[in-house]
């Protein structure tokens, strides 16, 4: 294998995550219309240091924008300055920068010394982010133990901060004001009320909406001081059945974030996979994710990316699939300890002290992908910041075969190595995704493959692997059979002896 000289020719990414249809944040969408809304993939940026958190929720609402409404439990009553709307581009940027990547290598033809490859291609990622939907309301107060702690107009949103004494009161209040609350929400509203959480209630202000040029709702960013470093996913499960996905982009000073109440798993990375996966990387990745998630027992958070993205750190990925977030992007994401005026501010940095802010230029980025459902995730997601600074990226490798005449001594050796490698790649594919050989469409690029004999093709590799597997099964059964026979004979003899 080492004899192949490889080089990175191009890097290709395909958005793999956002495959589900509608979506929501950790709160739930409430609907006036009777259709049941499903929360599927949501995206959230969390910036955390000491007791301060900045949370940005991507608004992927799909439907008539004026019908949008959302309820999110928050630990404190937010002030006007703690709420703002940000450009939704930031999510696209972070997603593209940190998503799982497919890396291409090209084998060099061993029969030539140098082979110039002008065929560098770069495929643009296609991101399909969708918007969710629903409701409208008029604000009225009834004596239901519900108190409007604050009321703001921020961007295109009317925002209320509610505190409540009882879930039934809160539920009635929300229903009376035009929010459609799922039945199952009761079971979680009460614990939140008991935990002294407030409710951040959002709806769209139609007047302001008209002033907007684009036809999308902007992400809402909230900041607060609280020791609670968590995401309330329980409420979001109230009106969803089945699995939901959430991508968490986290920025911290020291190192990775991890969940403290669920196991944290790194997805397998750096694996060599068959070339044909490039036609359908997104499908490959969603199969891989599902398979690994099942294997790890579901109640886990999956790490997809972790890197030091401090403005001073030069290398922010290897290889990079998109531009790394700039200082401006980080500031927009809510990284509040970055000093925007000076590039370098070496004074440090010990955690904490929510109010007197210590500037620092350390920023560590973690991207977690969580697939959750009611059964596997009985608790909200709690996080902690760790000192773990090990870089990580979910990265998969495809290798293009050498082109040109391979009829030389080195070429023959290359072909036999290639055969072996492709078999291994096929095995890797099966073990990563849990899908058999027959589940994959082996589409070959004829231009590329024309120099490679048919016996070295992926199809042949799959057939060979199948045979090996069958043979292994055969050996296994044979061994079991022999063992069975031996034990049978053994028992008989033993039974005979006492007689």
């Amino acid at each position, binding site marked *: 294998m080492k004899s192949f000289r490889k080089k990175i020719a191009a890097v290709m990414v395909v958005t793999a995550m956002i495959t589900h249809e509608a979506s929501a944040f950790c709160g739930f969408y409430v609907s006036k219309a009777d259709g049941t809304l499903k929360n599927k993939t949501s995206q959230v940026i969390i910036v955390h240091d000491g007791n301060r958190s900045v949370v940005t929720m991507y608004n992927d609402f799909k439907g008539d924008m004026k019908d949008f409404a959302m309820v999110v439990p928050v630990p404190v009553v937010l002030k006007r300055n703690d709420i703002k709307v940000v450009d939704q581009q930031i999510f696209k940027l972070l997603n593209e920068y940190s998503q799982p990547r497919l890396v291409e290598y090209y084998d060099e033809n061993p029969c030539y010394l140098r082979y110039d490859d002008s065929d560098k291609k770069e495929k643009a990622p296609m991101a399909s982010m969708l918007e969710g939907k629903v409701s409208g309301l008029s604000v009225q107060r009834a004596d239901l133990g519900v108190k409007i702690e604050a009321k703001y107009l921020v961007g295109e949103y009317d925002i209320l901060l509610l505190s409540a004494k009882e879930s039934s009161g809160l539920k009635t209040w929300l229903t009376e004001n035009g929010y459609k609350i799922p039945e199952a929400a009761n079971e979680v509203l009460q614990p939140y009320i008991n935990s002294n959480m407030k409710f951040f209630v959002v709806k769209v202000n139609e007047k302001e909406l008209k002033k907007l040029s684009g036809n999308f709702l902007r992400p809402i960013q909230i900041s607060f001081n609280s020791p609670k470093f968590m995401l309330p996913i329980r409420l979001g499960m109230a009106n969803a059945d089945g699995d939901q996905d959430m991508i968490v982009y986290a920025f911290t000073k020291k190192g990775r974030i991890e969940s403290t109440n669920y196991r944290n798993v790194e997805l397998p990375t750096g694996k060599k996979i068959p070339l044909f996966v490039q036609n359908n990387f997104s499908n490959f990745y969603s199969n891989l994710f599902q398979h690994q998630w099942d294997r790890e027992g579901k109640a886990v958070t999956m790490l997809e990316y972790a890197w030091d993205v401090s403005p001073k750190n030069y290398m922010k990925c290897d290889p990079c699939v998109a531009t790394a977030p700039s200082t401006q992007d980080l500031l927009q994401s809510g990284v509040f300890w970055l000093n925007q005026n000076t590039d370098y501010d070496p004074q440090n940095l010990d955690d904490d002290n929510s109010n007197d802010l210590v500037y620092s230029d350390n920023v560590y980025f973690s991207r977690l992908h969580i697939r959750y459902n009611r059964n596997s995730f009985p608790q909200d997601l709690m996080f902690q910041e760790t*000192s773990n600074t090990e870089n990580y990226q979910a990265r998969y490798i495809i290798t293009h075969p050498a082109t040109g005449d391979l009829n030389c001594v080195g070429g023959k050796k290359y072909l036999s190595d290639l055969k072996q490698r492709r078999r291994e790649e096929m095995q890797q594919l099966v073990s990563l995704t849990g899908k058999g050989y027959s589940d994959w469409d082996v589409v070959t690029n004829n231009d590329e493959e024309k120099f490679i004999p048919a016996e070295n093709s992926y199809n042949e590799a799959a057939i060979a692997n199948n045979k090996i597997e069958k043979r292994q099964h055969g050996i296994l059964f044979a061994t079991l059979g022999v063992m069975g026979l031996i034990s049978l004979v053994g028992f008989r003899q033993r039974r005979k002896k006492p007689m």
Partner: protein
Amino acid sequence: MFKENSPFDPRYFQVLFQLIFLCYGIFFLQWNDWTHYIISIIGCLLFNYLTESIKQGKMLPAFGKQGWNLWGFSVMISAMSLCLLLKTNHWYTSLVACFLTVLSKYIFRIGKKHLFNPSAFGIVATLLITKDAWLSPGQWGSNAILFFLISVLGTIVVTRVQKLDTSLAFSLTFIGLLYWRQIFVLGWPLDYFIHSISSGSLLLFGFFMISDPKTSPNHRVARIIWAMSVAIIAFYFSAFKWIYNTPIWILVAAAPIVPILDRFFSSKPFEWSSSTVYIRSISKIKKE
């Protein structure tokens, strides 16, 4: 058949079970922090050998009564605790943890007892000093089988050294408080609570760390009071202050109270060798 200082010291079981947990982590949970494991074990053994040799004023043999049993054994349990609990970025941080662990065994001593649980002290001091290490309370997941396994295996270990009282007092108090808070006060459904208590970290602490007879009070009543107080304080900080891994911090912080409790409740201090009585009596019976 069996010698006086039988190799079937209960600590063998303890190391064995710790090894089983580590293997569970490595084979089922894909832990792969090999550098940390190797450095922790070698580092602890090396430091302990050197310190014990200096203390005795001679180079100690590798095996036998004056060898492994003297310098290797007890530190092995601490080394395994470091492997199971601590995570580090760099090998030298792991080495610092070993050094601090061994240091606490020799420096903070009161009579025949340690003031701090060596590995708990090593972990907490490393976290504070280096800022390069961390604990992962979620590392075990909430696998019910593991819950069962740790409880059962832990019980065996603890009963062998006659200190089930500490573990039970701690675990029952902590779990009881969690139940009260999560179910009665906050009103979460039952699976919320079950998820909290099936974390391996809590059980591992209850059965392998707080139960250390060298660092817990000698008198049974004192031990129970002490274990319950650790549970109550740890619960307070985790439930109301949102701090994680509180038991281990509280265990270290509360250690200085143990000598005071020992003064009030006098009792014979614990000796590891006394627990081998069980095996020895068997050998006597056989001889007869």
